């Protein structure tokens, strides 16, 4: 498992939100984490994510993480599986565990 507790960039000091601030790629979050999606660096995936309601700005939960495989994220009752390589190209901010 990758270490999720990477150093946090500048934001936390000025942020008024009472949340843990960490930006990292989607593949380094853990099961049960609530996250906000910051950017999707893949043209096709971005469109699909918008349709599924999981694009930039969406708050989703990591439901499960298949070892070395896809992550399952949920928004409302909608669940999608995201391949590991694609997850590396999605930047997120952790809200809480």
């Amino acid at each position, binding site marked *: 498992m990758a270490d999720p507790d990477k150093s946090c960039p500048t934001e936390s000091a000025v942020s008024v939100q009472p949340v843990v601030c960490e930006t990292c790629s989607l593949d380094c979050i853990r099961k049960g984490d609530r996250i906000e999606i910051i950017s999707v660096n893949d043209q096709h995936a971005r469109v699909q994510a*918008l349709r599924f309601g999981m694009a930039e700005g969406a708050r989703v939960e990591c439901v499960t993480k298949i070892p070395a495989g896809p992550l399952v994220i949920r928004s409302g009752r909608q669940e999608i599986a995201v391949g590991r390589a694609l997850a590396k190209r999605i930047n997120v901010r952790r809200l809480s565990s």
Partner: protein
Amino acid sequence: MSDASCHGPASTEVREGAETIVLVGNPNVGKSVVFNALTGTYVDVSNFPGTTVTLTRGRLGENDLVDTPGVYGVSSFNDEETVARDIILSGDIIVNVVDAVHLERDLFLTLQLVDMGKRMVVALNMADEARREGVGIDRDLLEDLLGVPVIETVAVEGLGFDELRAAIPRARGGHAGVELAADLDEMACCVGTRAEALLVLEGDAAVSERLGREPGTRRDEIYIARRHRVDDVCGHIITETLTGASFSARLSHAMMHPLTGIPMLIALLAAIYVVFGQWVAGNVVDFLRGTVFEHHFTPWLQGLTAHVFARGSWPFELLVGQFGVLTMTPATLFGVILPLVIGFYLLLSILEDTGYLPRIAALADRSLTSMGLNGRAVIPLILGLGCVTMATLTTRILGSKRERFIATALMAVAVPCSAQLGIIAALMATAKPIYTAAYFTILLAVFVALGTALNKLVPGKSTDLLIDLPSLRLPRIDNLVRKTSAKVWGFMREVTTFFVGGTLVLGLLKVLGGLTLIERAARPLVTGWLGLPQETATAFVMAIIRRDFGAAGFFTMKLSDPQLLVAMVTITLFVPCLASTLVVLKERGWAYMVGLFLGSISLAFLLGGIVAHVLRIV
């Protein structure tokens, strides 16, 4: 009607004076059930994206109703979307089926359709399931916000259809997004319809080119605005009573996690093996083929024919001999293939309807990545176990040319189709279990090795998995029965022609002495290298016509267990059947087809020979 020349996908002609009503919705929301209920015709219904490959047209009163493939939005990202897009553009009225449980997802398409300015009605389907899951939906408010009639339906129970039918004449354009209005009006003046104007603004390359316009560059902006509207609408109309992690949620995760998912998959495969390999392929086939056909039907028919043609004469041989059209064809078709194909499609229907298939896709993603595919490829691969020909068409759902290349080759070489597998299982049922195990191990090894090699050799980049996980559901018996019978009927109809034709060709070859020539020519390879009796050459000739037909050729031969293993490995890896070869030619082109043909023949004989030498039967 903007585009009268919409040819392409429509299955029948548009009737004069009739309006075209188009059923549109996300995958797996119950469109096909709605279509069945409204028109009384059967179409394929399943809990998995990608089953409505072709369009189905039926009648609804004076008007025509067209079903479309499930899509998450109107654009041109894949074949399904292209097909759906064109039929939506040419339709008069849209019936948009949405899944009440997944409105955040489904309303994105709905709002896009509203923005297109089409007259429409929304069918709020699975309203009962939503209530059970604690999702309350304010239908009246949704109707106000969208500006189009919204009808609650429970498609599988047949509820709400009278209301839906009655609402169709009230179909109207809804409240489109305001931010686009000015641009849309301006564009619509030039291109004809609002719907086309919207697609041009959204940068749809195909539609823009057709209209001679420069595709817009604001897709992201438009989509993001639409997403905000969807979230806003959902925020107003949905009241949720949050329930804890339900049993189905836990089961869903267990299916995808390797620790629990792999044992579940193995248990499923073991159960399939017991039901198919032992019960259907053993007992049922033995009884049908052996007792019914071999001991009763064939001798009876031969006796009858002998009154007209002398035994051993060529008409006798052609009709009721070893390769007789009236004996071998029905014995194989109804004695072997029918029971197995029924079993396979029933199983596949269960996998589809429960929603297990996309979970297998998530579970298998990691392994498939090392073969240059992503988890989505389990769909064609599993379908390939049914019929490789059909599955080759399904490779269209894969994201890149590279993946289609790899998946097609894997299926043509290393995935036996259900009919062939059935015959192989029936033959292997007579040998020791260790040989069956060896057969599947060899096949799996070839599959993995070929996939890994192709991943290294084929240039380009594969796409990543991004797949929707539908809710797990208990399949409905009536749905399973209808779906299985429709698929079995389609399969048997296609197979029969090939079998009758193939048997005739073989019978003629035998009568004219061609088989003896081929057997003699193939002797060094078949006998010298593979250690099989020389008449097995016939089976390989048969396999070119159909794979299962080739395997069936071994029924009449007495082979030892090791010989059987060699024969089965070789015949499985041997050339794809005629029908799949034609589809491969159509989908992938000449060079690919020839390469595949030569490659699979060499691989089949090379591996068969190695197995033969390892087992020392040569």
